[in-house]
């Protein structure tokens, strides 16, 4: 290589910088090519090496996440992870974020987020069977105004999810939602999709993947035609949103869920056909139509999808741009290649079978065009007619950029810098009397009515959650969603969880608790956790404190997953969630999939029968730091409680593991009538939720307990109800496992939640109707 080419020219530097490439990356590009890159080539690198596509700042840390178990059929790195359920069934699942697009254009941003994650699942050859979403917004501050910017965002996002999810016929069965001003400029929209894979002919349970192989084989572009929408979506996702959000609107794609539905059916038909060898043709056995691989077109469009497929197959791809069906003309090669037009997939099929596969898509009214071929030279070659437009080594593109040198630095005060308000000194309000609650009824009602805790019905009733007739426990009805799997005794149990406030106070704990909390959700239902998919939402990784928090959170996730023996199989990283005014707190979100071997053994959340004993199982003491209670009654500054307790109680992973095993044993042996994990809002909120879910009251010996005990959110606790005749067996099982527990009271026939005085037997109570009213009003008027 001539020496003068070792450094990029001034023109390349200027053009590359405009596309978000660093000088170090541009130098590496010149080194890879052995020459200056053309405009199209520069665009290819910019997309493939963007944070969004290359995980350049996160890759190194993500390797720490344990990803192995005998059930893992596909671990991280594919379009989705896949876990085997038995010899004939597997589930594919993944979380994807669509934060930036949703901030700019909430309806289409959220809608195309659903479209993207559905295609990821489809890319594994799985039928999408469920969606869950995890949303973060600024404080709604609903007062006289029903049209705050936060509500506009929330309405747009929810309408977008409903629009797309309902139309494609994939039920939205669960989710979570938090409000915090740290998310005011950067709302988070993370979506989890779960798909079911059945054994297919000769393929067996082997999932499909994003792979191209076999020199001469055909690259088929299917689905929608290619338009000028969403160009540079991936690079836009890899930078801070600055200036006018309106200016970024053209970066957001517009989804067509109808076309997506057609694409799902056609692609699954192609997967099924492609799993069988062809019928004999003219007496000769044909070995043709085994579908080789498929890939969804998401961020970066063809420019990232094709190199990825080629890299995985150890081949090259030659693309003929003029073969691509266009929606609008003229389009430049750059626009065609980088277009993020939705509802498109690429298939790699054996040469000679292209017609057979094309016909499937044509039947469904979709495009199918042969746009290229697999070649032996490991390059991505792009031609238009006879003209060579780009020729880039696959490994250079798919191998990612040189690692950026992001620095790590722990902040002086944990939590400070991540959440500015936390850095300020404790407010002048009087030191709260943690010892004895002033008025537990008023506080409980206020917590139940808090937007962070109350009923999400106004949202989930806009989502079709019963289509596909599998939803046994839907949104709002339990700690986790339960789907039956037809023709099996199984229940698939799904949850998504993560608490940014914990992440702000202690990013390590934020990560660890997210895993534990998701596992608790599954175990409360009686399920065995099988696998994790993570959504990691952070601010700018070039900020050393953010990067430190990221590393801490990953370590927390990894340690917890190791302790609980649950593998990570897929995930998503979203950086740059910050504005000039604020950064989001470290927000690791965990999606988890579990299995109930016998769906009839699922444990409900609500109290079942009067006379049943109510137990708290798990840790017996803790603090009040980081709680919804502190946020609601003392303002966010006092999430940091001076001299009262550590910022956040630490989760003890060995204890958690023992606790979860005991809970599963209790469920398997049928010893508990109900179970609900204690999370946001603390003990009393959990008790109230179990009372409401079962429509049964409870008498509880809790009078005079401290507020920390009633409202603290310390970890590793469940509320269960136990039939009196099972009490001895439960005590024995918990005793053998050395787990603390306490009997708090019993379920009563009257619709009252009562606290009884320890000495004077004086009752103070709340009617279930009052509790329900408070719970239901939390989001009242948000969608009016």
């Amino acid at each position, binding site marked *: 290589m001539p020496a003068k080419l070792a450094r990029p020219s001034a023109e390349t530097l200027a053009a590359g910088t405009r596309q978000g490439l660093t000088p170090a990356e541009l130098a590496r590009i010149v080194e890879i090519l052995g020459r200056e890159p053309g405009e199209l080539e520069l665009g290819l690198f910019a997309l493939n090496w963007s944070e969004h596509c290359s995980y350049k700042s996160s890759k190194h840390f993500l390797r720490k996440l344990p990803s192995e178990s005998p059930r893992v059929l596909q671990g991280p790195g594919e379009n989705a992870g896949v876990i085997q359920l038995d010899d004939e069934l597997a589930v594919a699942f993944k979380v994807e974020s669509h934060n930036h697009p949703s901030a700019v254009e909430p309806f289409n941003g959220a809608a195309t987020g659903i479209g993207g994650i559905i295609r990821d699942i489809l890319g594994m050859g799985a039928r999408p069977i469920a969606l869950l979403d995890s949303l973060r917004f600024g404080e709604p501050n609903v007062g006289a105004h029903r049209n705050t910017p936060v509500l506009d965002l929330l309405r747009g996002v929810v309408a977008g999810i*409903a629009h797309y999810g*309902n*139309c*494609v*016929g994939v039920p939205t069965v669960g989710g979570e939602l938090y409000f915090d001003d740290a998310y005011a400029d950067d709302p988070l929209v993370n979506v989890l999709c779960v798909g079911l894979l059945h054994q297919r002919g000769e393929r067996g349970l082997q999932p499909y993947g994003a792979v191209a192989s076999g020199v001469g084989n055909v690259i088929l572009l299917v689905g929608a035609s290619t338009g000028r929408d969403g160009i540079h979506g991936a690079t836009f996702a890899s930078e801070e949103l600055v200036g006018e959000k309106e200016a970024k609107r053209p970066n957001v794609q517009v989804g*067509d*869920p*109808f*076309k997506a*539905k*057609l694409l799902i059916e056609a692609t699954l038909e192609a997967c099924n056909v492609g799993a069988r060898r062809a019928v004999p043709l003219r007496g000769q056995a044909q070995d043709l139509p085994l579908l080789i691989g498929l890939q969804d077109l998401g961020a970066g469009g063809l420019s990232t999808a094709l190199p990825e497929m080629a890299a995985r197959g150890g081949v090259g791809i030659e693309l003929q741009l003029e073969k691509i069906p266009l929606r609008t003309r003229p389009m430049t090669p750059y626009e065609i290649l980088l277009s993020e037009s939705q509802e498109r997939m690429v298939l790699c099929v054996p040469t000679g079978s292209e017609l057979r596969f094309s016909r499937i898509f044509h*039947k*469904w*009214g979709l495009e199918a065009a042969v746009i290229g071929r697999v070649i032996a030279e490991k390059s991505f070659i792009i031609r238009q007619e006879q003209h060579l437009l780009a020729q880039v080594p696959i490994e250079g593109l798919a191998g990612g950029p040189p690692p950026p040198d992001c620095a790590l630095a722990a902040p002086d005060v944990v939590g400070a810098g991540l959440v500015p308000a936390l850095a300020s000194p404790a407010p002048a309000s009087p030191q709260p009397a943690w010892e004895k609650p002033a008025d537990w009824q008023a506080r409980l009602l206020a917590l139940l009515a808090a937007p962070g805790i109350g009923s999400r019905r106004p949202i*989930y*009733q*806009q*989502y*079709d*959650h*019963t*289509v*596909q*007739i599998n*939803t*046994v426990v839907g949104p709002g009805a339990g700690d986790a969603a339960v789907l*039956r799997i*037809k023709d099996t005794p199984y229940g698939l149990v799904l949850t998504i969880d993560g608490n940014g406030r914990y992440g702000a106070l202690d990013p390590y704990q934020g990560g660890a608790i997210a895993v534990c909390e998701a596992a608790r959700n599954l175990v409360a239902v009686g399920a065995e956790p099988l696998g994790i998919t993570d959504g990691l939402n952070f601010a700018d990784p070039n900020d050393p404190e953010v990067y430190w928090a990221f590393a801490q959170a990953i370590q927390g996730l990894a340690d917890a997953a190791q302790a609980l023996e649950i593998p990570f199989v897929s995930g998503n990283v979203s950086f740059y969630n910050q504005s000039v005014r604020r950064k989001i707190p470290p927000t690791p979100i965990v999606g988890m999939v579990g299995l109930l071997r016998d*769906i009839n053994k699922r444990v409900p959340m609500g109290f079942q029968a009067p006379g049943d004993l109510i137990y708290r199982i798990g840790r017996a003491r803790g603090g009040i730091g980081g709680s919804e209670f502190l946020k609601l009654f003392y303002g966010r500054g006092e999430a940091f409680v001076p001299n009262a307790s550590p910022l956040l109680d630490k989760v003890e992973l060995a204890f958690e593991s023992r606790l979860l095993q005991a809970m599963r044993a209790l469920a398997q042996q049928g010893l508990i009538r109900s179970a609900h994990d204690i999370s946001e809002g603390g003990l009393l909120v959990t008790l109230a939720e179990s009372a409401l879910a079962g429509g049964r009251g409870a008498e509880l010996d809790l009078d005079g307990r401290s507020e920390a005990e009633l409202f603290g959110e310390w970890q590793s606790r469940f509320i269960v109800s136990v039939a009196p005749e099972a009490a001895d067996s439960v005590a024995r099982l918990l005793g053998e496992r050395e787990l603390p527990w306490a009997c708090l009271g019993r379920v009563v026939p009257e619709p009252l939640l009562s606290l009884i005085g320890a000495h004077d037997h004086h009752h103070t109570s709340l009617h279930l109707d009052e509790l329900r009213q408070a719970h239901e009003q939390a989001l009242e008027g948000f*969608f009016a």
Partner: protein
Amino acid sequence: MRAAVIVLPGSNCDHDAFYVLSQVLGVPTDLLWHEDVGAHGHTPLLQYDLIILPGGFSYGDYLRAGAIARFSPAILALSDYLARGCGLVLGICNGFQILTEAGLLPGALARNITRQFICQTVRLRVENADTPLTSALQTGEEIELPIAHDQGRYVVAPNGLAELKRNRQVLLTYAGENPNGSEEAIAGICDPKRRVFGLMPHPERNTELLLGNGDGLRLLRGLKQT
């Protein structure tokens, strides 16, 4: 008895209806691609005793729900099917919308009064148990079925409404809350000859005790018995 579930582009309850008919009700059932039926298709509808138009968003509900689907070969073939045979047609949700667009049932389904998609289980009152669809139920009883729609507000001209009532074509009404603002809380109707049925609620989503109280099965059983 033999049933067919018509698959239109955008149908998304086709597999659900197929599963319930074949597995829960035990009726031999075919999934029929809409273009394989009718003038140019090779599958005659007349071999079926029951045609189901399933829920979903046929043709994306673009223009209006059902407005494009009514031109599908399978839907165009329904008039002939009804004229020449004695089979029944049941449209559920989007299927109901298509039947009104095709003029096979009176009235229309407009956007919910809440202007939002609504998915919830509702209580329904049986208004007329004297039809094949409702024959396993009692007039006046209440049943529970899920709804999931954006355009489910039944509207009909005053004289049309009078006629519906005169002919006792109203099968189900929402009991208690009228979730979508339907005229007279109407949730399901039939044609004067009791051969074409349209329901906004989804009986196929409540036929197994794992998923609900099974009221949907009690309803659909009526079709099997006739």
